[in-house]
């Protein structure tokens, strides 16, 4: 190991440049700028003869450095060992090659990007419709041959998306109920309208907050898991393996997820709404001295039963949306890590956005149902 050095011999008519030492990545660290400066002088340019026999070792970096300093060619008179010459030879590819750059951006690129985004959105909608169609065909298939229904997968998904979500949804529901009740009670107290807390909590939670809260939680919890699972199965070619065994992927992978979520979500809505109402009831009894008996007695009288049905119907619709979006994004993962992570993110964001959109549709479609004075 010795440091790379340059020296000039000015004895003869024309100066001779001689290089010594190791021109390697390790030895050049920290010295590259000084060497470049030493070699890029008028003296170096005038050098008639280059003596490289003193170079002990040279690698790509050393060869590349010299090649660039010589202006992409070998000097006319050069003394070098066999190994050094071979290395310089491999640097000679640089002249033509390094001008190759990634394709330049053109002014129409942004326009093209817009068009491509539109096309990919249209393709997504198309894929989603195809997925729904495939699911309907699968349902028909199962209706005809019930022995092929994926019962074990449905039950496993029901457990993963439903049962194991019970604690977290109950906790979130309870806390939201407490907060909502506490804040409303502060306002209602000033008007002496304490009793309306039951109307506010009842309609608000059963009709709106319960279903949306559960949908957001489940989209984050199960939607992302579904996308990641299908995505990884795609990356590792497990889905292709299933197909070669004659197992249709939609029947075995997508349908159970959709059916399980469509079943589990309304039940979770019921569960979370109950927890939220319980939280509200506890807060109301502390804040407004309202007895549990009075709360439970008044609730069915001020909240028409239609609100519960709307809430459950929302649960079914949200479950369908979340599962479809999650499966669609999972199946469209490309075999690389980047695609997996972006698709999982997209899946959760799209599922929550779709849930809010569907919720708005529900609000318009059911505006005359279940509301006092509606």
């Amino acid at each position, binding site marked *: 190991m010795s440091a790379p050095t340059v020296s000039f011999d000015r004895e003869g008519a024309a100066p001779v440049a001689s290089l010594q030492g190791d021109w*390697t990545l*390790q030895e050049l660290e920290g010295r590259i700028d000084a060497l470049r400066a030493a070699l890029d002088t008028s003296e170096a340019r005038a050098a008639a003869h280059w003596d490289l026999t003193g170079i002990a070792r040279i690698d*790509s970096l050393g060869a590349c450095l010299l090649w660039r300093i010589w202006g992409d060619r070998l000097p006319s008179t050069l003394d070098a060992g066999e190994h050094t010459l071979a*290395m310089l030879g491999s640097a000679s590819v*640089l002249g033509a090659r390094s001008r190759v750059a990634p394709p330049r951006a053109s002014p129409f690129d942004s326009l093209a990007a817009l068009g491509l985004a539109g096309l990919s959105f249209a393709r997504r909608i198309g894929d989603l419709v195809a997925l729904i169609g495939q699911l309907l065909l699968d349902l028909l298939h199962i209706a005809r041959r019930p022995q092929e229904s994926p019962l074990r997968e449905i039950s496993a998904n029901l457990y993963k998306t439903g049962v194991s979500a019970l604690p977290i949804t109950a906790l979130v529901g309870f806390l939201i109920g407490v907060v909502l009740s506490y804040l409303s009670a502060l306002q209602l107290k000033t008007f002496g309208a304490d009793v309306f807390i039951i109307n506010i909590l009842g309609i608000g939670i059963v009709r709106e907050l319960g279903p949306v809260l559960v949908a957001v939680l489940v989209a984050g919890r199960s939607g992302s898991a579904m996308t990641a699972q299908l995505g990884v199965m795609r990356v590792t070619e497990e889905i292709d393996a299933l197909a070669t065994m004659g197992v249709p992927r939609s029947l075995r992978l997508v349908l159970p997820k959709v059916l399980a979520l469509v079943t589990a979500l309304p039940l979770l809505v019921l569960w979370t709404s109950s927890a939220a109402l319980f939280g509200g009831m506890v807060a109301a009894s502390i804040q407004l001295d309202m007895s549990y008996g009075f709360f439970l007695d008044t609730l069915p009288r001020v909240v028409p039963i239609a609100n519960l049905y709307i809430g459950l119907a929302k649960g079914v619709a949200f479950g369908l949306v979340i599962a479809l979006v999650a499966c669609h994004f999972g199946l469209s993962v490309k075999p690389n890590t980047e695609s997996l992570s972006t698709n999982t993110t997209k899946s959760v964001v799209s599922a929550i956005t779709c849930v809010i959109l569907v919720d708005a549709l529900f609000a318009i479609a059911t505006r005359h149902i279940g509301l006092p004075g509606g």
Partner: protein
Amino acid sequence: MSAPVIDIRGLVTRFGTNVVHQDIDLSVAAGEVVALVGGSGSGKTTLLRQVIGLLQPDAGQIRVFGQPLFSGDALAERRLRQRFGVLFQQGALFSALNVFENIAFPLRELRWLDRATIRDLVMMKLAMVELEPRHAWLMPSELSGGMIKRVALARALSLEPELLLLDEPTAGLDPDRSAAFVSLIRTLRGQLGLTVVLVTHDIDTLTALATQVAVLGERRILAYGPLDHVMNVDHPFIQNFFASGRLQRTPDATVR
């Protein structure tokens, strides 16, 4: 430079109660190409991972370039690791980066090379592994198996290593590609003066590349030496291993 590049002394590896290596001694001299062979589960890849420093042996010591792998000095360990390049079995290219960025990544991590030099170096490496400049902008998912190996080799070579470790370099390549890849490694080895350690199952790769063969089995090294010496060792596994290789090639020979 007569000191061994890799020096393994009294290496012991256990997975639970299962002893994989028992007191293994092995030293690799500079400029050698050592092939590690052995049956499945004999711990070839484990040994390679220990030399790379991905696994810590349960007992014994591994010295690479005369320095211990786990010295406790983070900076020294890092500098040591920059002196060897590794080609993983599946290539292990970063799937989020294109070919150019994959090869440039270790160079950028040095943090003292300028952009233009990095670009020059990447283009030189690409030419070394016989890839076209236009391949530089492809993503790993767009590459064929042979190209993945080449790009991974270019990345392994990007820090100008003195020691190259190859895990099954020709697994998953067709015989034609595999022969081409082997000759590429041989050319580069001659050009760059590399010391190479490879794990392989393929007898053709072994005969074409290796100057020394180490046979792993029964938790130790059964034989170590030049190929003809190892082939004549009287041990059932070794005889079987080379016999099966010959058997594969006999139909070929009769056709000719």
